[in-house]
């Protein structure tokens, strides 16, 4: 069976109480579901002997600016066994700007999630070390949000003391 049908079917079989939506664009499989389920789904995808998504390549977020669910957190994971990439998406709203961490599943998620927090201000529940990664600790804004101006905000970064 084609992998693009096999993976969603397997997910529905094993975790029947979660609603999965799948989408194939440019030969890439994307699976969308509710953000509460991110941890169990990732754990299953990593540990299932037929899937083995051992490598978490990337975690990022998209700011849709004017949508109801303002952010989408995007995970790209790779299975060495099936030689295939899978994209997971969870919507996060600005009023409840939180999602569970997947650091316990892939340790590499630590810095990816710190970057998302730094750039978009999405908090990750139970993250072991949720600090800003690029910007200084005292910085108040989240630069990759669409309402942050390209030229920056004057005075938001202090110059070093002489």
């Amino acid at each position, binding site marked *: 069976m084609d992998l693009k049908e096999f993976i969603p079917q397997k997910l529905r079989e094993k975790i029947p109480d979660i609603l999965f939506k799948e989408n194939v*664009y*440019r030969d*890439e499989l994307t699976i969308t579901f509710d953000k509460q389920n991110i941890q169990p789904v990732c754990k299953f995808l990593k540990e299932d002997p037929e899937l083995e998504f*051992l*490598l*978490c*390549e*990337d975690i*990022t977020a*998209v*700011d849709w600016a004017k949508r109801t669910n303002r952010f989408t957190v*995007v995970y*790209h994971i*790779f299975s*060495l066994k099936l*030689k295939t*990439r899978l*994209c997971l998406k969870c919507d996060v709203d600005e009023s409840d700007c939180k999602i569970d961490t997947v650091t316990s599943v*892939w*340790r*590499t998620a*630590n*810095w*990816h999630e710190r*970057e998302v927090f730094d*750039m978009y201000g999405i908090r990750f529940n139970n993250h072991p070390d949720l600090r800003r*990664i*690029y*910007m*200084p600790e005292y910085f108040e804004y989240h*630069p*990759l949000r669409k309402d*942050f101006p*390209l030229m920056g905000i004057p005075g938001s970064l202090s110059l070093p003391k002489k």
Partner: protein
Amino acid sequence: MERIIKDEVPTEILKALFQVDSTVQIDDVLENEMVLNMGPQHPATHGVLRLLLRLDGETVIACVPEVGYLHRGYEKMAENMTYYEYIPHTDRLDYLAPLSNNVGWVLAVEKLAGIEAPPRAQYIRMLIAELSRIASHLVAIGALAMDVGALTVFLWTLREREKILDIWDILCGARFTNTYTRIGGVANDIQPEAIAKAKWFIDQFDPNLEECEKLINTNKIFIKRLEGIGIASREDALSLGLTGPNLRASGVEFDLRRATPYLCYNDIDFNIPVYTEGDSLARYFVRVDEARESAKIAKQVLEKMPQGETLANNPKRVLPKKTEIYTKMEELIHDFMIVNFGINPPVGDIYSAIENPKGELGFYLVSNGEGHPWKCKIRSPSFINIQSLPLLITGHMVSDVVAIIGSIDPVMGEADK
């Protein structure tokens, strides 16, 4: 060394020592932990990487890497410029292999916009990607040797790298920030002189690399400084998301050129060097072997390179040739539209990754149908490789920190984006 207590120091010396008001107390340093700040300006951190080390004597018991000193906001900038305008910026990510980044970016944009480059352009891209892999690994090998005290290797590997830069010079007129690829192809066809020079380089590369290897491979100091230092087990390496040579040194045979073939890597015969030790020495060996394999690939690419166009025929998305812009109306209009409004890929999002010298370089692009990307995420390998430093460094001596950073081979331009 014996412990000195206050009573043992002659009073005259003590007086001289404490002439200036100070809160320093003479104490046994080996009994106290201390925090050592390394970087961001430090010759051995390969850029502006800052490490905070908690030391017990000379042993590192904890390490916190700090990045962001070179953060230029390339992801934000990408959202405010067209896909074409962004090509020169990719040069500045991994500045030791700019052409490889160029290839990664245009492949991502082509996937998003549904363009396919003609075969000759794809072969040229493979050639430049492999040669820049060699160029990048030569710096990595040389710098690692220099970090552990062998300066000659650095000079010799840079001599080899210089020859590759000469090829770039002929190919696109620039030695470092090349900006050679274009969406749908490459800027210009490869010149016969560049091909001749590349052929000459590949023929003389193997013996020269061997010469460099002979300097260090049997050198006791070099081996002792690297063997068993900074071990990442297979599970750790995968869990920490290491990619590229660092992952293959830990016994995982994962190479995107094989796992998700792009360009024409399917037609090429090459091996993926894998070592199982996972220590700094294995990472060095993987790089040397990979440089050899890349030369092999480049040789095959030169043999198999087909004739033909180097730009796709897609007037709405691909910039026309300069001579045509000046002589034909249609081309002039398309050039104006592409430069001013961009190539407007259809609404959608894609992730495209290539095997860069440092690891997996991925671009996640979201298009809302306009000329500028709605979002561009750069998955930079160095950023993730640096994340593994605490695991590798903890338990080793301060002097090993330098060797481990060298063996991980981070480039801060890429890690900080």
